[in-house]
């Protein structure tokens, strides 16, 4: 049950007044979720006010003759409990009066008027200060320009125009699809510094067209567009128009159309640019080609990322809000979350949801959470991005935004805890709950250790590489292995034949036989001669053994376990090789090493922690399912300006920025640490293959991890 006391102690302030709506106030009827509402609009100041049916009836009855109290009594008799309470009437009158929608019979109080003006100025200054990320500068009133453009475009500002637009869009997408690869490659040249100027120009122009889109459609449906200016979106000037006149449109589709107008125009530009880009793909001015790409890029990407995004207060938000028929979506979802928190966590009784409809509540909750998460994400990404580009400015921006988005609400919350009348009767419990939650959270992030993981790149290297050479001269008859084959010690690799050896053996064999027969002869004749022959046989036998040894070498065997790398021996089958000819290489898998790379700012822990305390795990890019554990063998402390392998650099397909001037692809811009990682006995992969390395540091509370990382970012930026 909501608390709505009938009487207000301040009733006497308004009771006898005879106010009425100002004559120039325009009224439109709108429907929101099946309910009728009335929007009051003051065209001269563009102030809006939305009223429910009962309140509208109340305001309608104020005709300048009846007093506030008389009207209230009529309302009471008609609507009973649904009639506004005295407090609500006071609220209503003050809001209408302060929006300049109501005249009161009293002589205007100059001091109050001036005070109101000052207040408004102060508020707008305050808002500007709070929204440093989107700073607004008003420039001029574009209404006359739009009034001139709108009739020209009128013939296509209808559903046929929309269908034609959709057709253009589909056509552009279909025609560009085959050039996907070129499209992808184009990003590189687009992001090149030489193109930045063009990007900026194209951005401003497309955004101008975007705003004209809003303005023209707003005018098309009869709205005024009194303001044009620039908004500094993270330092990037983005034009804007004030199309809030559309809020008073009766049809929600028209309101959505005005919201979508910018995107419609911009996507049309993107489509045309895509077609231009395709036509200049082979031949044509490279500048036109690039500009077309720029236009396509900014007009589509920025539109989809920013304008269409309903989580920020851009076009998408207002469109969604109209589509769902929930005005003030952002504010009401915040109220909803606050209400839920108060009800569920603080168990406050006097809190009421901003809407009583179940489905609307669900939408508000979902949207509220999404917007909150997105806001945090946006804060971190924008801040880190700007810090990366301009450290000082980024820092200022970060501090400012942090104070506006986090510290101010925090202070507000403390103030709420200390003095909100809502929780007056259970302040103790609420403060206790808050402290308990705060304690739990700080314990979780400040004391409970969490795994701390750092990531790096690496490349497989092998210190133990053995050349396989031919042991004797001969023809290669057979090869048993191919590169990449894993062999064990003694496995045959290559078989050769050598006629020469065979002949030699046969000769020696014959000589042995001959000498043996001689020996037998001499045995009867001369003892001495026999002795000589016997010795000669021994020599010849020795010689035969030698030849046999060489013959064994005809089968080249693996000297140890390893992997065959280098030249493919199969290619040499049939070839004659001399002794000592290089055949292939054998890499010692038991001694594979990974050369890891860490940016200097990332790797300071390498020197702080003992090597046993962290774990190193690796995955090759070829087999991402297999994780190999290793250990750090050696850390090269001094920053290295050269990569161990070009595969790590951008040029070699890696991620480390290299010096584009350098042909070897190994010179890097910022010095890095080198870590040699050893994984004994495990075949990681082929040498020269890139490896993703995960270092698991000892568990550490999250806060310590964040501080560590933040320090690194700061260090890294400051050192540039």
């Amino acid at each position, binding site marked *: 049950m909501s608390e709505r006391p009938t009487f207000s102690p*301040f009733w006497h302030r308004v009771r006898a007044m005879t106010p009425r709506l100002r004559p120039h106030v325009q009224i439109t009827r709108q429907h929101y979720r099946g309910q009728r509402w009335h929007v009051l609009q003051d065209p001269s100041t563009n102030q809006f006010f939305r009223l429910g049916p009962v309140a509208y009836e109340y305001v309608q009855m104020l005709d300048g003759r009846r007093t506030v109290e008389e009207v209230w009594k009529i309302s009471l008799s008609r609507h009973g409990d649904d009639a506004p309470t005295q407090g609500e009437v006071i609220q209503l009158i*003050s809001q209408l*009066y302060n929006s300049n929608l109501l005249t009161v019979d009293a*002589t205007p*109080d100059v001091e109050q008027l001036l005070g109101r003006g000052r207040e408004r100025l102060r508020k707008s200054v305050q808002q500007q200060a709070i929204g440093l990320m989107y700073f607004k500068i008003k420039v001029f009133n574009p209404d006359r320009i739009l009034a001139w453009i709108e009739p020209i475009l009128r013939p296509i500002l209808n559903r046929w125009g929309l269908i034609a637009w959709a057709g253009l869009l589909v056509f552009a997408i279909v025609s560009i699809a085959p050039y996907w690869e070129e499209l992808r490659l184009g990003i590189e040249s687009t992001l090149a510094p030489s193109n930045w100027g063009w990007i900026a120009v194209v951005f401003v122009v497309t955004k101008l067209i975007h705003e004209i889109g809003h303005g023209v459609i707003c005018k098309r449906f009869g709205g005024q567009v009194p303001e044009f200016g620039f908004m500094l979106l993270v330092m990037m000037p983005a034009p804007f128009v004030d199309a809030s006149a559309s809020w008073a449109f009766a049809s929600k589709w028209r309101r959505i159309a005005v919201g979508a107008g910018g995107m419609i125009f911009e996507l049309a530009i993107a489509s045309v640019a895509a077609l231009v880009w395709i036509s200049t793909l082979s031949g044509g001015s490279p500048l036109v080609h690039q500009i077309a790409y720029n236009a396509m890029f900014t007009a589509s990407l920025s539109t989809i990322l920013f304008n269409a995004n309903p989580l920020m207060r851009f076009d998408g938000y207002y469109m969604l809000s109209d589509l769902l028929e929930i005005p003030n979506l952002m504010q009401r979802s915040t109220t909803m979350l606050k209400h839920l928190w108060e009800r569920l966590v603080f168990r406050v009784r006097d809190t009421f949801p901003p809407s009583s409809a179940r489905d609307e509540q669900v939408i508000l909750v979902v949207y509220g959470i999404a917007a909150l998460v997105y806001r945090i994400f946006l804060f971190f990404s924008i801040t880190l991005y700007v810090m990366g580009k301009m450290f000082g400015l980024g820092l200022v921006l970060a501090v400012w935004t942090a104070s506006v988005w986090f510290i101010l609400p925090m202070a507000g919350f403390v103030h709420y805890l200390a003095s909100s*009348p809502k929780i007056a*009767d259970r302040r103790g419990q609420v403060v206790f709950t808050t402290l308990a939650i705060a304690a739990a959270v700080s314990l979780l992030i400040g004391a409970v250790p969490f795994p701390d993981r750092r990531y790096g790149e690496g490349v497989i290297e092998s210190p133990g590489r053995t050349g396989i050479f031919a042991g004797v001269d001969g023809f290669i008859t057979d090869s048993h292995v191919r590169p990449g084959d894993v062999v064990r010690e003694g496995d045959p690799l290559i078989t050769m034949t050598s006629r020469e050896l065979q002949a030699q053996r046969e000769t020696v064999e014959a000589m042995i036989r001959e000498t043996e027969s001689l020996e037998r002869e001499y045995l009867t004749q001369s003892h001495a001669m026999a002795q000589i022959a016997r010795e000669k046989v021994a020599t010849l036998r020795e010689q035969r053994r030698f030849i046999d040894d060489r013959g064994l070498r005809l089968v080249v065997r693996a000297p140890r376990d390893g992997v065959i790398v280098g030249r493919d021996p199969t290619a040499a089958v049939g070839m004659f090789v001399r002794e000592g000819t290089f055949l292939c290489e054998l890499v010692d898998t038991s001694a594979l090493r990974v050369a890891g790379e860490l940016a200097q700012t990332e790797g300071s822990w390498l020197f702080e922690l003992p090597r046993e305390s962290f774990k190193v795990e690796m995955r090759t890019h070829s087999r991402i399912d297999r994780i190999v554990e290793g250990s750090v063998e050696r850390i090269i402390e001094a920053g290295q300006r050269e990569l161990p392998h070009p595969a790590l650099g951008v040029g070699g397909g890696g991620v480390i920025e290299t010096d584009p001037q350098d042909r070897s692809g190994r010179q890097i811009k910022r010095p890095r640490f080198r870590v040699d990682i050893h994984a004994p006995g495990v075949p990681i992969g082929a040498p020269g293959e890139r490896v993703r390395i995960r270092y698991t540091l000892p568990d550490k509370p999250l806060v310590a991890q964040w501080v560590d990382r933040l320090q690194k970012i700061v260090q890294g930026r400051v050192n540039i």
Partner: protein
Amino acid sequence: MSSLSRYHALYESIRSRQIRPEVHKGLDKVVGRAIMRFKMRGVTRSWLRTQAERVDLMAPELRSVSADSLRSRVEQLRAVFARGSQAEEQVRTGLAVVREVARRETGEEAYLVQVMGALALYHGRIIEMATGEGKTLTGSLAATLIAWKRRHLHVFTVNDYLASRDARSREAIYRFCGLSVGAIVQEIDEKDRAAIYERSIVYGTPKQITADWLRDQIRLGRTNTAWAGRQTSALGGGPRGPISGPMIPGLSAALVDEADAVLIDEGVVPLIIARSRRQDDMAEVYLQAARIAAKLDEGPDYSIEHLRRRADLRRRGLVRAEQAWSEFTEPIWKAARRAEELIRQALVARHCYVRGRQYEVVEGKVVIVDEYTGRFLPDRSWEHGLHQAVEAKEGLEVTADRETLARMSFQRFFRTYPLLAGMTGTAADATSEMEAVYQRPVIVIPTHRPIARVESPARVFKDTESKWIAITDAVVEAARAGRPALVGTRSIAASELMSRLLDSRGVAHKVLNANFDKEEATLIAAAGRGGDERSGVTPAITVATNMAGRGTDIKPDAAALAVGGLLVVLTEMHGAKRIDRQFMGRSGRQGDPGQAMVFVSLDDELIVRHAPWAAAVLRASPGRVECRWGWLGRAAFRLAQRRSEARDRRSREAVLRQDTWMEKYLPGT
């Protein structure tokens, strides 16, 4: 009165009404205070002392001056002050001369500390002067200078008795200084008031003067220029005809006695001017609501929050109430929300408003009792049917509902004065609020003589009965010793209970509460009488509500001083420490001996409402009737007091916030 001065009054009045003091919020509040302090940094205690010493140096010379030449000096100074800006030296001379005038006219020579105080007041500060240090004299010195400078000065006192007493006792000084003086009290008829307000110095209570100001505002309607006002027929004059202007010719300077009571304690309830509505059919409705409320049971049907004075109907209660009111034919019972509000109101009237505490029934009428001063507020009534609900509960004739015509918080009213100065015995506790709300720094003026009052530590009892027994014992003992005693109670009901207890012990005493306020002056005058066994004179034992807490000057006689001076007994702690200190300050004035005793029990409203868990802890602590751990008990009571002070502060802030909001965002004034 001349038409010109009428016009001038109108002009000043309208000018005053257009002053809209800013109320800062959040950070602005902190900054605002810092700026204020910087702006007002000049007047420090040491500066005041050197100035006062220099004033003192002029005294011997002035003492020998003849009356005529003193008069001519006064005339000169008056002219200098009226011209506006004047140098510190002239202020010193002025002060020295007025001091001499006061010495000659009343025989009281201001002490150095009083001169310091007067100077601080002249510079628009809130000063703290210990009770009995002669605030009246200090005030009159400052009042003369301020009235010279600003033409009109309103001096605020806590009650009518003090207003007329002070106006009368100071008249000689003011007259000598060329100033006229008057007092606005309840009895003075409205048509005679304008003439009194024309005088240079007007004494009165905040309620009287604020109400007159508000009546002026109603009469002025929405007029916001003097010229337009001149033409308004409501002011009694046609076009170019004679103008009957407002009663109060603008608000130019205010000197507030008991500043904390006036500026802070009374800030909770705004002043309301109301008139009866002719809506006789409602009387029956309130009686019906009271009947339904009587039938419901607390617990299953409804719950009461005493602190917030609100009742919540539970489901069962709502069903039972609905059944009950469905029999009634009055249209209001058809609207469920309004009907429920009526029942809740009847429940609040039943449980949160107690006869003898919040109100008293006098001659068949409900009269509100001011919770801070213990006095009747005969013209006031609660709003929106609460008054009627209480009448219905008491079974009295239900009066017509009154509708508010105008309303103003005292905070708002006092902030309108360009010059606001105040004095009190207990301002230091309220420094932050004085600074934040009124932009007035607080200066503590040292005492003339060291305080010789003995303040016994509070005794904490486990239940009310043992407390009352102990109090009675203490009073009886004092009476036997021939020592005068002042027993302070928080409510009329308690004062009557005390009286019965003393009767049962055969102790002669007098009761001072709102029911006997006619005898106030005589009772106070006699309250310092010591007993004398030989002559058979019994010591004065006075049982009083908070009425005696402010501005009453009890002078113990020689017999009383011989046995240790006045004994002040507090039978309960108040919602704010300042009020306790005020009451204790009735004894030990001007370095006299005296004693203050405080008795509290765990059943006291203060601890039950504001720190019930502390009461529970104490109940379990050692001691059968009295807590043996007195220190713990005192700490608990102090905590409860702090919480109650914070609560009151918040409701005052809320009043001020609402006021500001109305002014800022609603059309008209």
